[in-house]
């Protein structure tokens, strides 16, 4: 017989109730990058809008950065860690894949036996995590969920690749999602375009070193084997990000039942200032909308960029609690996720 299963007992609505960020102590200016590539500060700024980025020290691991960001987010949310029933870690740069690092985070923050798992959706990872968190809360599987984006992309940077050496940074951003009386996270417009999987990718798989034909592995000028790095086809990514993602951003507004006029804040993935500027133009965002431009001082931190930018806008008073924000992440996959949220 088919037994009747009880309908979900969770909260139909959820919202972000706290945010926290951690940026590594060491700030790396463009001048330092120029030791490795033939370029100029002016060229880097005009192509990317990036002036500085933070690079982690050996002690600033993905876990340690996450614990700092998570601690701030939990304090900001005004809950105790024991109330967290789920921990979702979005990252592509934690190199020990098993076990999921989220389990270590759940344990070390004091979230006990919280459900914990990692998500790999590249630069869209934070949005994927947020969508899952909302579902867990609606389902009643968790009452509060910690969603983290954390990266050490400096470990995946080829310093001799003049098109990407200046692009990436390190950091962690975290939010606590909890139940709400009214919708605080809109429907996600998300997806993937696997036909473009080669557009942004790691240069070689990890097992390339194990099974690899040495001739297939990337080598440096002195014949040394090169660690895997992120590479991308800049023009293709730019076109997709600006023009296709502007459509996705509009769909997220439509799905939330609002228009650009209702927005206070726009927080796109901090990939590149040129992408951000062109998206704003293509979306025809009204003047009153505050646009996150954290990439200038933080670089591209993949899954960490949206929560880091959110935290900074709130900390500097450029945005305030209760503001309506459109967030959109997009990157390797090519995967994307956009949604409208109420800021914590």
């Amino acid at each position, binding site marked *: 017989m088919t037994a009747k299963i009880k309908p979900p007992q969770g909260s139909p609505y959820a919202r972000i109730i706290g945010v926290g960020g951690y940026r590594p102590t060491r700030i790396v200016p463009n001048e330092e990058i120029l030791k490795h590539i033939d370029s100029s500060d002016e060229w880097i700024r005009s192509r990317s809008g990036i002036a500085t980025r933070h690079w982690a020290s050996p002690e600033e691991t993905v876990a340690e950065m996450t614990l700092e960001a998570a601690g701030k987010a939990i304090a900001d949310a005004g809950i105790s860690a024991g109330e967290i029933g789920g921990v979702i870690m979005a990252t592509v740069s934690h190199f020990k894949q098993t076990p999921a690092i989220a389990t270590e985070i759940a344990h070390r923050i004091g979230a006990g036996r919280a459900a914990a798992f990692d998500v790999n959706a590249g630069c869209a990872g934070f949005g994927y995590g947020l969508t899952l968190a909302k579902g867990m809360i609606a389902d009643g599987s968790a009452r509060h969920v910690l969603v983290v984006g954390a990266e050490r992309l400096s470990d995946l940077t080829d310093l001799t690749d003049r098109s990407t050496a200046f692009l990436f940074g390190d950091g962690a951003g975290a939010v606590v999602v909890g139940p709400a009386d009214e919708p605080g996270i809109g429907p996600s417009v998300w997806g993937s375009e696997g036909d473009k999987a080669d557009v942004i990718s790691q240069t070689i798989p990890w097992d390339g070193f194990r099974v690899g034909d040495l001739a297939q592995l990337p080598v440096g000028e002195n014949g040394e084997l090169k660690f895997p790095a992120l590479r991308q086809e800049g023009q293709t990514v730019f076109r997709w990000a*600006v023009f296709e993602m502007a459509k996705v951003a509009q769909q997220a507004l439509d799905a939330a039942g609002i228009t650009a006029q209702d927005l206070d804040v726009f927080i796109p993935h901090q990939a590149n200032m040129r992408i951000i500027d062109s998206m704003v133009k293509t979306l025809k965002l009204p003047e009153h909308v505050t646009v996150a431009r954290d990439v200038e001082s933080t670089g591209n931190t993949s899954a960490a960029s949206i929560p880091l930018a959110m935290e900074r806008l709130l900390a500097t008073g450029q945005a305030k609690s209760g503001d309506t924000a459109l967030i959109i992440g997009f990157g390797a996959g090519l995967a994307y996720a956009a949604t409208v949220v109420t800021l914590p």
Partner: protein
Amino acid sequence: MAATQEEIVAGLAEIVNEIAGIPAEDVKPEKSFTDDLDVDSLSMVEVVVAAEERFDVKIPDDDVKNLKTVRDATEYILKHQG
């Protein structure tokens, strides 16, 4: 109706002016987008997308790198426009 060569050059001039701020009268067939008109690789993508809309043509990324001069772009559009 398909655009003529002159209309395409004039249209590209307007697009380059809009995107890179170069005076439209400086946009001539022999000019290189990168070297003469201050259109870098990312602005070139914006020029291409604007040209696609204006002239009802598809310009895949693989073909964009072959469009060095205004003449290259004009001839491409003449050949491929819908």
